[in-house]
C-alpha cells in the first residue's frame, strides 16, 4: 500500500517536473521554431506548431543584412574580457574577505551588493556623458569596462561564499608547512576552489553575454555585440518575427552550447559548494 503511494507520488512529481521544465523551455523552443517559419506563418493565428513550411531563408537574410560573425566576435571579446578581468579582481578581494575578515567586511559586501539594487538607468546619462568625453562610446574596451564593473559585486559575492566553505584549518596547515601567501593561493586554495571558480566564471560569462542594457545604450556598430544584432530586428520599419527569432537563435546558440556542456559543473558549483 505504502509502496503504491510512493510510486504514484513519484509519477506525479516527475510529470510535474517535466511540465514545469517544458513550460520554462517553451519560449526558447517557440523562438527556434519561429525562426524556421516564413514571416507570414510566424504571426499566423492560430499558430502552427510543427506543420508549417520549414525554411532557412531567415538565417540567410539575417546574415546578409547584418554581419553575424562581427557581432559574435564582439560578444566573445566583451563577455570573455569582462569576465576575465572581473575574476582577476574578485579572486584576491574575495580571498582576503573570506580568510582575514575585519569588522567591516560584512558591511563592504553589503555595500557592494547594494550597488546592484540601483536601476542602471539611473546612472545612464552620467555614464554616457563620461564615455563620450573620454571616447569610450562604441568601443569594446568601454563595454568590457562597464560590464566588468556591473558584474563585479556578484562575482565577489559568489567567490566569497565559496571561499568561506574552505576549511581554514587546511590553509593554516599550508602555512605551517612553510607556504608563503602566494604559494598557499596557488597550491592549496585554488585547486580546492576550482568548482566554485568555474561556476562563477560560467555564470558571469552568461550574464555578460546576455547583458542588454549597457551594450544597447553604449554601442552602435563597431563594438556592438549580439544583443544589438537582435535588437536591430525590432526596428521602426516593423517587427519581423521570423527574422528576429533567427537572430535571437543565432545569438544564444553559443552560450547555450557552452551551458549545455558545462551544466554538470554549473549545477555542482551552484548547489554543493566548493569542497564537499
Amino acid at each position: 500500500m505504502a509502496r503504491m503511494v510512493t510510486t504514484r507520488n513519484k509519477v506525479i512529481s516527475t510529470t510535474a517536473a517535466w511540465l514545469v521544465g517544458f513550460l520554462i523551455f517553451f519560449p526558447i523552443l517557440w523562438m527556434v521554431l519561429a525562426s524556421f517559419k516564413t514571416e507570414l506563418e510566424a504571426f499566423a493565428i492560430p499558430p502552427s506548431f510543427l506543420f508549417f513550411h520549414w525554411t532557412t531563408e531567415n538565417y540567410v537574410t539575417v546574415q546578409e543584412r547584418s554581419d553575424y560573425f562581427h557581432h559574435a566576435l564582439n560578444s566573445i571579446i566583451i563577455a570573455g574580457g569582462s569576465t576575465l578581468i572581473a575574476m582577476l579582481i574578485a579572486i584576491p578581494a574575495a580571498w582576503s574577505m573570506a580568510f582575514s575578515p575585519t569588522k567591516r567586511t560584512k558591511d563592504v559586501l553589503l555595500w557592494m551588493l547594494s550597488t546592484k539594487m540601483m536601476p542602471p538607468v539611473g546612472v545612464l546619462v552620467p555614464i554616457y556623458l563620461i564615455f563620450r568625453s573620454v571616447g569610450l562610446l562604441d568601443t569594446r574596451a568601454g563595454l568590457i569596462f562597464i560590464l566588468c564593473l556591473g558584474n563585479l559585486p556578484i562575482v565577489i559575492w559568489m567567490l566569497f561564499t565559496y571561499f568561506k566553505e574552505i576549511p581554514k584549518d587546511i590553509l593554516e596547515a599550508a602555512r605551517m608547512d612553510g607556504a608563503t601567501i602566494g604559494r598557499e593561493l596557488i597550491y592549496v586554495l585554488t585547486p580546492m576552489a576550482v568548482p566554485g571558480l568555474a561556476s562563477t566564471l560560467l555564470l558571469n560569462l552568461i550574464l555578460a553575454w546576455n547583458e542588454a542594457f549597457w551594450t544597447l545604450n553604449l554601442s552602435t556598430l563597431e563594438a556592438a555585440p549580439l544583443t544589438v544584432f537582435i535588437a536591430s530586428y525590432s526596428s521602426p520599419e516593423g517587427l519581423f518575427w521570423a527574422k528576429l527569432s533567427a537572430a535571437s537563435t543565432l545569438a544564444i546558440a553559443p552560450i547555450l552550447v557552452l551551458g549545455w556542456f558545462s551544466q554538470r559543473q554549473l549545477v555542482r558549483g551552484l548547489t554543493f559548494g566548493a569542497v564537499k
Partner: protein
Amino acid sequence: MGQITLQGVQKSFGPVHIIKGADLEIADGSFVVFVGPSGCGKTTLLRLIAGLEDVTGGAILIDGRNVVDVPPAKRGLSMVFQSYALYPHMSVRGNIAFGLKMAGVTRDEINRKVEAAAATLNLTPYLERKPRELSGGQRQRVAIGRAIVREPKAFLFDEPLSNLDAALRVQMRLEVTRLQKQLGTTAIYVTHDQVEAMTMADKIAVLNGGKIEQYGSPLELYEKPANLFVAGFIGSPKMNFVTGELAKQQGATTIGVRPEHLKVERNGQGGWHGTVSVAEHLGSDTFLYVDAGPQGVLTARYIGELDLHPGDKVSLIPEPARIHRFDDSGKSIRA
C-alpha cells in the same frame, strides 16, 4: 634543537582577555601536554606558539630567539590539527611531501623522506590514495607523517586523537609517544583527556581560565597539586574535598583525599562514617559513593572486588600522609 620559552604571553580577542600571562619553559626534546577544561585557552596558546595568532603581549622564544613577529612558515614548527586538515586534492604522497616541496628540497630527497615517513607510519600501501579514500586513523597518520617529515624544531598537536574510537586512540597514543621518543623532537600536545596527559607527558601544564595553574611532571601534579583546581582536575575519580571542622583540625580550610587513599572498612571504628549509596563493581576495582553526612558524598576506590552494596555502613579512613591541605585562597599548604 627545539627549546621553547613563553614569557608573560597574553592574548585578547577584542575586549576578551583569553590568555592572561603564561610563563613556561619547555626543554628541548621533552613532551609537554597542555591540559585543562574546555574553553580554558589550550588551543589558543598552541596557536600563539605556532604563529597562527598574534600575541597581545609577552614573548615567545624558540631556541632563544623571540619569534612573536615571525610568520608561522618561518618558525620551523609543525602542527597536527584535530580535523587533520589534509589537502583534499593531493594524494597521501603529495600531502606528506608538501612541506618539503615548499622548503625547496630536491625531488629525490623528497621521495626518500616521504617513503621513510610512510614506512614508519605504515602508510606505504596508501601513498597514492586521496585523503577521502582513507579511514580516520589513516588520515591521522598522514597528518602526523606530514608533521614529522619536515624534521621540525617541535611538533604541535591539538587534540589529534579526539576523533578516533577508544581502541584506536590507545594505540595511536602509544605510537605518538614512541615516535616522539625515537625522533627526540620537542612536542607540545593539547588534550582535555587526563589519561592521555598523564601517560604521554614528560611535563604537564594545567590550564584554567587562561592561566597556567601548575607545570610539572605527571607524578608531581598527582602527589603535590599546587592548588584546589589542579588537585580536582588531575586524578580519576576526582579527589574528595572536605571543609569545616575536620579541615580546621588539620590547620586548613579544605582538605583533600584521593579515592584510592581512603581505606574502606565495613562497620569500622575510626575515620569517617557513612552509608554506601552507589557501588560500582568493575572486577578490577570497586568504586564506592558513600554518603558521609557532614562530609558530603565521598568517593572511595578499592583495588579488587569488595562485596559491598547500597545501604551498607562503612567507615573510610584516609591515609594520613596522603591528605592534601589547602588554605583560604585554595593554595596548597606544604609542611
